[in-house]
């Protein structure tokens, strides 16, 4: 048997990088397409109730009697026990910042002067570690902390549409005060 040496990397690397200059020279032909696609998602049972309760200014979870978890966002089946969940459980519109970021880039890659503060917020009344994604405001970016207590600030009822954005944002609360706050 002869030993055949497989050629090392430098000999097999190909590809033609383009840069702004090459494109400007106009020698490269391009074609563009902007898709006009629209999607409408049906909510299903659990999400439908969740959104309806958001419109009412309340957070609701689902519990599984087998693993004894209170889950938010709510779901009709428990992914661990692989059985139907059992009960609707109202949980509080207060919670604890599990983690956060100060984000200076929008979803479509525009720069932001004032950062958005996305956070995972562990919800009071749900099982430990059960968080939802939302935004924190009304706090100086340098003052946000993991472990910070926050409360939901709801849009006025007339402006609610049955959406996660019916909670306008979350803001810090005094450790002793557990009451929720309404947006003006």
């Amino acid at each position: 048997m002869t030993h055949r040496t497989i050629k090392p990397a430098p000999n097999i690397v190909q590809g033609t990088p383009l840069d702004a200059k090459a494109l400007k020279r106009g020698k490269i032909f391009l074609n563009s397409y902007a898709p006009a696609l629209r999607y409408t998602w049906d909510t299903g049972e659990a999400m439908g109730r969740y959104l309806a309760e958001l419109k009412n200014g309340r957070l609701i979870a689902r519990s599984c009697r087998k693993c004894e978890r209170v889950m938010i966002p709510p779901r009709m089946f428990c992914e661990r026990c692989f059985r139907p969940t059992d009960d609707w459980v109202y949980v509080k519109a207060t919670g604890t910042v599990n983690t956060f970021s100060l984000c200076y880039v929008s979803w479509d890659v525009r720069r932001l002067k004032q950062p958005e503060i996305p956070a995972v917020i562990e919800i009071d009344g749900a099982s430990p570690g059960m968080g939802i994604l939302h935004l924190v405001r009304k706090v100086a970016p340098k003052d946000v902390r993991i472990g910070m207590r926050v409360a939901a600030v709801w849009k006025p009822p007339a402006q609610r549409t049955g959406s996660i954005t019916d909670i306008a944002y979350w803001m810090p609360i005094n450790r002793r005060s557990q009451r929720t706050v309404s947006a003006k």
Partner: protein
Amino acid sequence: MTKFMRRALETPKELAWLAAKAALDSAEMKLDQIDGAVLGSAPDAFDGMHMKGEYLADGCGGWRKPYLRCYVGGGTGVYAVAQGWFQVASGLFDTALVVCEEKMSTCQPHPQAAFISIFDPFTEQPLKPNLLWIFALEQNRYMQTHHITLEEIARVSVKNKRNALGHPSAQLGAEITVKDVLASEVMAWPVHRLMVSPTSDGAAAVVLAAGDVARRLTSKPVWIQGVGWCLDTAYWTNRDLYYPEYVEKAAWMAYRMAGVKEPRREINIAEPYDPFAYKELHHLEGLQLAPKGQAPKLLADGVFDRDGDLPVTPSGGLLGVGNPIAAAGTMKICELFWQLRGEAGRRQVPGKPERGVAQAWGDLMQVGTVVVVGTSEPKH
């Protein structure tokens, strides 16, 4: 593999072809010696080409062959190699060609906007999230849990971009300092610009063969000793992000298959997924190559340098070579192939490594894919 670049002249199909042909040439094989072909590629939204698996088939050598596309988010590039391995290890085929391709530059002005549709349409999309959010949230949780500093995280960028200087495909090889990383723009605190891999165009490919076929092709085959993968729930806000349990499960699946009982002793070289700097450390812990929270210290001690006890990402990784999503994972397998054969040139790690692990990750902090390769034939 092709160069990894911000924007390539070549079409996705041409990139796939360049990588596939290079893999066949290096094995001195023709397409008619290939029994089946596997493609790995990320969401269609980047290419704006629906059914891109079918479109890319020709470039992957899939013409009139059993061919399929597989996809597990960012974990695809390592998983695709496992997918090819199933076909050969099952005895169905003698040979398989695995090609991973990504062309992200097609999506204008920036492929980031295509990521919004990975988020839940009810609970997350209305908040207008971007991909930086989830990495920043995870990095912050990881740092807070173990009291890790930004300097410790920044060292990953310094090491990987330096390692990439020796890689002929590299898009962002550079000699930088921890200070440069920390002085770079804050994208989403605690993530700084130089802690983020670029968007890239590129492709990478490998040829897999049954043992007896491989021995006829070369006296130095590199063996796939174990494969593993695992998905956690998409309810990512219900999990503690400080530790990737799904990576641990995937790693043990692969280690068990490979007969590895003590990963820190038995793995000589590691290519963990490093789309963001902290991710390399996070994944090394998931891969059982560092105790929880200790990867930053081992990095600072030089353990993960190219000439350290456990060279990590000698390729230069996604931070240095680039991140054409699926192709980046396969690039890591290619690196192990060259390293284990002693053919990595300027990037060669000393000490004749005998076994390596490659890992990729993806979706909503959710997927771990792992392949263990080595110089000795596995017993299974």
